[in-house]
């Protein structure tokens, strides 16, 4: 492989990595990070540096997604802490729409309330935290965009 072709290959690989990495980040960050990382990519001079950026962005997605999940679960924990003190309980039915990758395509909503605003808030926060981990519906063996409802049961004791 000539050096020119090698650089061309690294450029293309770096571009693909940045695109895929940005799409793996939680909404609403995806579009922003894709544009931001592509701007960064355009400023890297050598093919090797561009490839390193691509891999780095991919690595960044894991950190960003993990921190988002931790923050979301902590927020749910705060709402649920009040509910635990009151020993509230109930079953929330949540509706969620996900893409083929198991990521939420819109905000989940409460279909059937628990009767407690705190538990409903906790259910929604947990449903949002699950983005990227939902199992998409399959058609002819291929994952497709879909919406479905599931239940979250709260049986909290102080």
């Amino acid at each position, binding site marked *: 492989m000539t050096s020119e072709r090698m650089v061309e290959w690294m450029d293309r690989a770096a571009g693909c990595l940045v695109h895929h990495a940005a799409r793996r980040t939680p909404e609403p960050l995806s579009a922003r990070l894709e*544009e*931001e990382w592509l*701007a*960064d990519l355009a400023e890297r001079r050598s093919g090797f540096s561009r490839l390193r950026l691509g891999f*780095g*962005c991919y*690595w*960044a997605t894991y950190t960003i997604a993990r921190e988002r999940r931790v923050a979301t679960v902590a927020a749910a924990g705060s709402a649920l802490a009040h509910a635990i003190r009151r020993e509230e309980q109930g079953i929330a039915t949540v509706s969620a729409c996900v893409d083929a990758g198991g990521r939420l395509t819109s905000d989940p909503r409460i279909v059937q309330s628990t009767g407690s605003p705190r538990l409903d808030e906790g259910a929604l926060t947990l449903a949002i935290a699950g983005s990227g981990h939902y199992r998409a519906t399959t058609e002819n063996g291929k994952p497709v965009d879909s919406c479905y409802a599931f239940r979250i049961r709260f049986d909290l004791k102080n």
Partner: protein
Amino acid sequence: MGKEDREVRMSLQTLKVLEAFLENPTDQLSGAEVHQRCKLASGTLYPILLRLEAAGWFVSRWESINPSSAGRPRRRLYRLTQTGLKRASEVFASFNRGVLA
């Protein structure tokens, strides 16, 4: 993301990012420029920038250029907020005293 002043976990990498901004606190820097100054890998740098922005230490905005006439994509520019400047200065001051904030 919330803009409230939240606690930020200090690491050597976070200090390097803050140091890059404290060279001239009014500068607005893109991710690529921060990378050039502190030599952090993008996998480390971008989560730190987002974390500091979420904590209210930074604000960011898109560069106001027309990408087609400029011939390059617009950059996302980060700037220290007053809170960020105050907190970052405190961190470095305590660090110089031998106590990491």
